[in-house]
């Protein structure tokens, strides 16, 4: 469960932070948005996160377009949502976009990230263990939470 460092000012903040945490908790896969060579690019990735909401992890092999892109720009967006591919999604679904700088983890940080990531995605053991796979950390600056079709709230993560 998430808990943490997010600065909570009042009930609404708590409610929004809880909604963000709940979405991250219930979803396993998100859409990674990168940009490179003059073109935007989207990829499905399994993600995991630290309880404080400030760090999201995902893994990719280094030969991928997404890796080339994020290496070039150093920034990504990750969309996590709970749509169910039914008409009801229009009023029921929530979507969360996390944005911020991204970098590959190394050393102890990689070990920590791998442990968190594998706890959430045990089936990725071989993939994560491969020397060709990079584990990346998205240091979230802010989350955009969209609910009720059009309502957008922004959760700023204190640096």
């Amino acid at each position, binding site marked *: 469960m998430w808990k943490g460092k997010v600065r909570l000012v*009042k009930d*609404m903040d708590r409610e929004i932070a809880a909604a963000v945490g709940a979405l991250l908790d219930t979803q396993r896969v998100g859409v990674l948005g990168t940009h490179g060579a003059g073109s935007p690019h989207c990829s499905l990735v399994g993600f995991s996160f630290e309880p404080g909401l400030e760090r999201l992890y995902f893994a990719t092999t280094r030969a991928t377009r997404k890796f080339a892109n994020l290496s070039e720009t150093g920034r990504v967006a990750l969309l996590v949502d709970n749509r169910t591919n039914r*008409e009801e999604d*229009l009023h029921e679904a929530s979507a969360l976009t996390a944005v911020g700088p991204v970098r590959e983890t190394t050393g102890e940080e990689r070990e920590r990230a791998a442990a968190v990531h594998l706890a959430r995605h045990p089936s990725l053991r071989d993939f994560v263990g491969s020397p060709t796979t990079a584990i990346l950390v998205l240091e979230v600056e802010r989350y955009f939470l969209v609910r009720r079709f059009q309502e957008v*709230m*922004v959760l700023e993560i204190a640096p």
Partner: protein
Amino acid sequence: MNVLLAFESLAEADRPRVGGKAWSLSRLAREGFSVPLGAVVPVDAYEAYVGPTGLRERILLELNRKPFESMRWEEMWDAALRIRNLFLKTPMPENLYGELCEAVRRTFGDRPVAVRSSAPGEDSAGASFAGLHESFLNVRGAASVAEHVRLVWASLWSDGALLYRQELKLDVGKSAMAVVIQELAEGERSGVAFSKSPADSGVSLVEAVWGLNQGLVDGTVQPDRWVLERSTGRLREHLPVERLYEIRTAPEGTRRVDLGTEKRELPPLADGEVGPVWEMSMEAERCFGCPQDVEWTFSKGRLFALQSRPVTAGAEGEAGSRAWNLSLRRSFENLKVLGERIRGTLVPALLKEAGDLSRTSVGELGDGLLAEVLRDREEAFLRWSRVYWDEFIPFAHGARLFGQVYNDRVKPEDPFRFIDLLRPPRMVGTDRNARLEGASDRLGGNPALKSETKAFLEGKGEAAGVEAFLEDVSADLGADTDLVLSGTDRRRALAGFLLEMASRPKAARPVEEGREALERAFLDGFEGEERAFAGELLDLARASYRLRDEDNIYLGRVERLRTEALDEAARRLGKRLGVNLEGLETAEACRALEDPSYRPVPAAPEKKEGALPAGPPVSVRARQLVGQPAGPGLARGVARVVRSREDLLGFKSGEILVCDAIDPNMTFVVPLCSGIVERRGGMLIHGAIIAREYGLPCVTGVPDATGLIRSGDNLTVDGYLGIVVIHGQG
């Protein structure tokens, strides 16, 4: 799918898909009660309509704009009107329509029928939706029946039904509706019978009216009442009423008819007829195993059961919240009487009292007299506030009622198109603003006066010309001078405001386009007697719409007089005690004025819920907020969050007014605004009305608007979709 199930074919397993009314009618028919021939359109047909047409999701989108439990009743009204229009504009899928028409033709031919709601869970022991969903009598022909089935479906989402579901915390996502179609038993006398009175378990009640039951059920016609001993059926008491009208069938639908002398004098039931009605209710109780509330009618001498449902606590006298929900659905007749009372008696009395109270100049009174005057003004304000809630607000339903009739008849794309028909050529609020605009034009057109005013505001130069000008403006504004700004620095504030107004670009006010054509198109949809009714309804709706502007302003006058006396008391007491007594309440002030040894305690400052602290950015901010589209158009500008009168003083031309709820003290800045955002929701609330008068984009019903938006934020106000985008500061 079988779209029409005959009563006699229903099995226990059908109960959840045919609703309580259909189920109990089929049961009564099986048990040998006289029940008019009938059948039910099951919930499956409703699903086959709202699913494939996309209506279900559109309804849920409409109701999920904000948490359902936090929607105000006016927002429910608006949502209900939008949803009803969706039903009116969305035809049934062809196969469903074809099957339904065919089944109706086969079962009922061309005979007149009643089309009535039968929502599952509607009439259970814990809930009674009686009167909240719609029924239609005297409908003929398959096409018309199918059309009315759609209207009954729509009434699942009526304002009253939505409010009631909100109250009972029922899940709107699961709401569905079955519809009963029954041969019309054209009763000469009708009524209801309670096998056990909700108020007194020892007695039964029988109520009866001349004509059809509809008048009794919707409250238009008062019934005679008989009280019987429950154990024996012995008649205890007959309570007659003044009998004036009955409801009869018209060529299509029903109409109210004046009773002739003979019927006025005769009770609808002879003494010997009360017994059989009572027996029928007791028989129904035996059949269902609990006390029943049975609707009945005598048609051609034969007694029919029209409906039977469990007696609920609120069944008699419509106690509780459903009663209030129902009170918002006043009938035309009821509204007409209310309107006459408001225009003929209440508003003149309110104005006279405000005038009388204003004749006392509070600054000149001794402390004891000031306390007396303050008490009087407080009492008057509270009394008129009650009138406002009890009489003025319900009268607002006149505009809604008209909206519904207009939409049913004209089926416009925009369900709020009817508002254009209601806008009066003049309104008190806009009249006042026009006088202010006139004054600012004079200032703008007189460079010498303008520079003198600037100097006056900077505390320099000769002020005689400015003072004379301001004196003149105040005289012109009359009773509403204080509406603009009150307090000691009123003249400076007024001068500053007029100067700001004089510098604004001239806004083009919306032109009253095509109002007459709209009116003609509406009235031409009716013929004969109905046309007269439509005209009367339009007049009523116009009065209702207009009052939504005026009542605020008139009540505001009394409130200001109270505030003026209270401010004077706080000023004096504060000076005497050497403390700031802002927020002092009337009772405390009076006590301290009358007892010099008493130290008054000012009220704790109101907790501003949701207000974000100023200063460094906080962790959550809003980027895009959703409300209701209450005035079409798109505005971009800087937010001015108004929480108190002081916030209005520096209002700059082109800013967007963001407030909790517009009150008459604020509307003078509207000509300067480029858009309006309001926490309180509704299409017919004061803020929305005034925004429409000035052609301003307006979004209402934005939760926590004044907390989430800060003065200085750049905003986009999308008045088409009801969205406010907050771009941040700078």
